[in-house]
């Protein structure tokens, strides 16, 4: 199925959740949806037999640099061999996105990484801890954010060169 057809299927059911569909995006077509509806849409995409998106290829966090954070979902169907991209955008003051961990188990660590690097809160995640940085890394310090400043010391070790 082509991305436009997949978009039409989503539109039938989740008209109110759609923010923007870009069929002519530079890399590949994507659909931006509201952050509190992402889980419902993902569940639909997985369970609908004609879509059958059974594989979350990648879940990445993004800092757009203008006070907006985002999450990008690359999903794939092993059965039909088609792919699709979903995006959500959230304000940096309140970066809350619904977790898709209950839809695809592989989202568990991906979401922990997005939380660790960008501070995006995934609502409904069973175990939202840091995954790459140490557990005692300063609260509210997220390394891949544009405004991140390296702390002077960590556990008595000087970090800057």
């Amino acid at each position: 199925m082509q991305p436009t057809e997949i978009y039409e299927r989503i539109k039938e059911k989740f008209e109110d959740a759609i923010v923007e569909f870009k069929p002519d995006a530079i890399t590949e077509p994507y659909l931006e949806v509201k952050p509190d509806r992402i889980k419902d849409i993902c569940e639909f995409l997985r369970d609908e037999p004609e879509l059958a998106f059974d594989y979350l290829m990648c879940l990445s966090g993004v800092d757009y640099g203008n006070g907006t954070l985002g999450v990008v979902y690359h999903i794939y169907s092993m059965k039909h061999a088609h792919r699709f991209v979903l995006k959500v955008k959230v304000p940096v003051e309140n970066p809350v996105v619904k977790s898709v961990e209950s839809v695809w188990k592989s989202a568990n660590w991906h979401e922990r990484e997005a939380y660790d690097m960008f501070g995006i809160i995934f609502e409904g995640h069973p175990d939202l801890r840091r995954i790459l940085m140490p557990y005692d890394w300063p609260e509210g310090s997220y390394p891949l954010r544009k405004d991140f400043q390296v702390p002077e010391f960590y556990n008595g070790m000087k970090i800057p060169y």
Partner: protein
Amino acid sequence: MGLLDKRFENENIVITTVEDVLNWARLSSLWMMQFGLACCAIEMMAASASHFDIMRFGIIPRSSPRQADLMIVAGTVTLKMASRVKRLYEQMPDPKYVISMGSCANCGGPYWEHGYHVLKGVDRVIPVDVYVPGCPPRPEALLEGIIKLREKIRRESIVKKKLPPVYVEEK
């Protein structure tokens, strides 16, 4: 060295100094802590394989820090790993030696500016005896580092202060 020069004819007696015999014993069987942190570890493994044969220097990889004399820090020391490296170093019995292998362990390497997660040089947590530059250094460079360390141990004294670190020159 002089160890064999002063051997008495037809007798099983050797005259030497305590320092000489201690240094000789130490430099001849440097058991190394078996661990690697990044791509430098691959070169370290190559150095211990048959082609470069690190064992001809009496170096045997040892899996326990309690029975190791030499720690080769081969790779990027992340902040998370730094406290573990320090703990392992503290668990090694004296006398103990450290070779810092590769740019990352020497000074942070490619992560020196934007590496929020990398310790900029392992010498910030443990004292280093020999620095081996390279990214990653070839096994020959590591072998030269080991030879430099052996020379350094040979010059050691029980009463004098610890010798300063040695640098393997980039060629």
